């Protein structure tokens, strides 16, 4: 194919411009051109050469050096400039002017130099060689345009698949500014079944097409696991395993992940990104430094360190890629954190807009070298169109009569498996697989989570929830929880579910037993299950109480059984 095109181009009837002020020279060169099967056109001065070049677009130029009006050197400079991306070969043909002229001619853009007298074969060889190069140029140009077009299409497809499914885009602000068509940065957001928001910012090594190969498996893992209710620890672990298997050595993903509850409590993890900041009224009140290597490097992540903090409604969490901090101006200074903090201190209405404005003014017209990403999460984010949870007033006994079918499922976790396996996610996917999707599983997820966490934290790990009575203690509680979970060797929690399908929906009985000593549930029941506003503990069980038909404690509080009833609307 290439060979055939080449032959066609060389043998084709194409114009060669001969520029010389001497008639005899023009005649000799013109004859040679004709003998090669090409068509000569003529110019007598440099100025005329430019004009004819523009009119006739020859495929090659033979240029004299010394001419009146404008010499061949200046004409070459101007023609090369006019040609732009297009390659127009220019061969200087001249008498004995010396070495300096040769250098000048090549500097001006000339492609070759030939000195009189010369044999016909020499000119013939040079013309053939240069026309072959011109052909290659055209091919490279065509391929480049093709690549750019394909990249644009691929980019649209990819960002469609990766980012169009993001949740809560009306509430969180995501800005992405790639250095090339493809960005190595990936921003993801999705809600867990209990209404918590997971947000991930990832920065693949490098940028451009090659750094995007991991984006699809990354977003699929993140979304599927978030939807099934897995928590951030497990998602990070799974993404790491997947990328470690998938990515070539030397490629990895700097990652930040945030889980934000509807009450403003947040859980933040950072592996390789600049500090993730919580901003309150122009001040950075909490920083989550990178305490882990980026994902995809180590086969196993050890001791995931999540930071816990609580946000006021008008606080913000700010995630950014290193492309922001390291953006350079013409003087090769970096934007740096200090300038970032100055922008934040101005308490702008929109953090992202203000940072982009200051960053843009700082960088000026300098070329952007790395992808730039900013994610701004406000202190409170809610799923769109929150469904009123349908709770049934019907008595349990009445429902029993119309039971269509019953199945049950159980899982017992002991010792170390408690720190590794999340039975709630498993239970929930069993329910969804067997009974189909629906909003009622959001409530079931909350119920299962609260009951399981209580059994694990208080029953097995023997943590005191009174620890959670202050914001500091709140964080301390989770650190302690992590420590105890890691060293866990005994203890057990078992989860039992019985699902009854009803003509109107279903009834779910959940029983959670732990190996602990129970607790003074009578005292709690006497209080009527009320929780003071601002109180950090006791929320969970109050929520379960609200959602369920009934709640019953046995074995001194180490076994709890609840019944949840849901309706399916037509």
């Amino acid at each position, binding site marked *: 194919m290439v060979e055939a095109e080449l032959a066609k181009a060389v043998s084709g009837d194409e114009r060669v411009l001969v520029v010389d002020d001497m008639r005899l020279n023009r005649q000799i060169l013109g004859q040679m051109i004709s003998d090669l099967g090409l068509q000569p056109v003529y110019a007598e001065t440099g100025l005329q050469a430019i004009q004819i070049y523009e009119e006739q677009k020859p495929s090659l130029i033979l240029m004299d050096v010394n001419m009146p009006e404008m010499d061949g050197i200046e004409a070459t400079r101007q023609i090369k400039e006019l040609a732009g991306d297009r390659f127009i070969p220019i061969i200087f043909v001249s008498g004995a002017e010396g070495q300096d002229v040769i250098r000048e001619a090549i500097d001006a853009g000339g492609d070759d130099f030939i000195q009189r007298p010369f044999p016909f074969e020499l000119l013939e060889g040079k013309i053939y060689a240069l026309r072959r190069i011109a052909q290659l140029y055209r091919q490279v140009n065509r391929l480049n345009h093709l690549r750019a077009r394909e990249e644009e299409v691929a980019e649209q497809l990819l960002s469609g698949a990766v980012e169009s499914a993001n949740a809560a885009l009306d509430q969180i602000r995501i800005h992405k500014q790639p250095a090339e068509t493809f960005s190595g940065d990936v921003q993801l957001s999705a809600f867990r079944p209990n209404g918590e928001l997971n947000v991930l910012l990832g920065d693949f*090594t490098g940028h451009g097409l090659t750094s995007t190969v991991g984006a699809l498996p990354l977003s699929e893992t993140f979304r599927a696991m978030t939807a099934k209710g897995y928590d951030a620890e497990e998602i990070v672990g799974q993404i790491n395993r997947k990328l470690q298997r998938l990515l070539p*050595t030397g*490629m990895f993903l*700097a990652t930040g992940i945030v889980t934000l509850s509807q009450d403003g409590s947040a859980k933040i993890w950072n592996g390789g990104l600049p500090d993730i900041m919580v901003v309150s009224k122009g001040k950075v009140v909490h920083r989550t430094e*990178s*305490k882990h*290597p980026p994902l995809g490097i*180590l086969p196993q992540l050890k001791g995931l360190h999540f930071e816990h903090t609580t946000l006021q409604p008008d606080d913000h969490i700010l995630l950014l890629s290193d492309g922001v901090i390291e953006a350079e101006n013409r003087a090769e200074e970096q934007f740096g954190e200090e300038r970032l903090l100055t922008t934040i201190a101005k308490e702008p209405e929109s953090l992202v807009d203000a940072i982009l404005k200051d960053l843009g003014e700082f960088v000026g017209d300098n070329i952007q070298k790395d992808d730039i990403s900013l994610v701004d999460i406000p202190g409170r984010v809610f799923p769109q169109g929150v469904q009123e949870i349908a709770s049934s007033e019907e008595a349990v006994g009445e429902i029993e009569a119309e039971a269509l079918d019953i199945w049950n499922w159980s899982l017992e976790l002991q010792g170390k498996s408690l720190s590794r396996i999340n039975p709630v996610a498993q239970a929930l996917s069993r329910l969804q697989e067997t009974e189909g999707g629906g909003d009622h599983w959001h409530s079931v997820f909350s119920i299962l989570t609260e009951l399981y966490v209580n059994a694990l934290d208080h029953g097995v790990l023997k943590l005191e929830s009174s620890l959670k009575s202050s914001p500091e203690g709140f964080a301390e509680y989770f650190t302690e929880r992590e420590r105890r979970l890691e060293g866990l060797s005994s203890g057990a929690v078992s989860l039992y579910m019985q699902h009854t399908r009803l003509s109107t929906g279903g009834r779910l009985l959940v029983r959670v037993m732990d190996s602990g000593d129970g607790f003074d549930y009578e005292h709690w029941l006497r209080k009527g299950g009320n929780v003071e506003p601002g109180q950090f503990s006791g929320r969970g069980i109050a929520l379960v109480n609200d959602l369920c038909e009934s709640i019953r404690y046995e074995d001194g509080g180490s076994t709890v059984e609840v019944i949840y009833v849901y309706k399916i609307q037509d």
Partner: protein
Amino acid sequence: MAISVQSNSDAKKVTINISQQFDYSLHQSFRDAYRNTNQTGTTYTLNLSQATYMDSSALGMILLLKEHAEKLGGRVVIEKPNESVRKILTIANFDQFVTIEG
């Protein structure tokens, strides 16, 4: 030259010195600096004292060097990074699996 190599096969030591910017442009010459060294148990010292800047592709290049060294039963030691280079290494927590000295 942005990269220079000293190699002492008796002592099983290869020292790679980086000057100026340690980034993607050094990809090929960095690989060339160690790919033909194949003595088992070699310690590769990556001297960054003259490196002014490092980007994430340089981190990737270090991982490739580490893989090469470990295949030969050797190891990688990063030496004397300046403050800004050290910051990049710290953010990526490379100290958790590569020795950083000086």
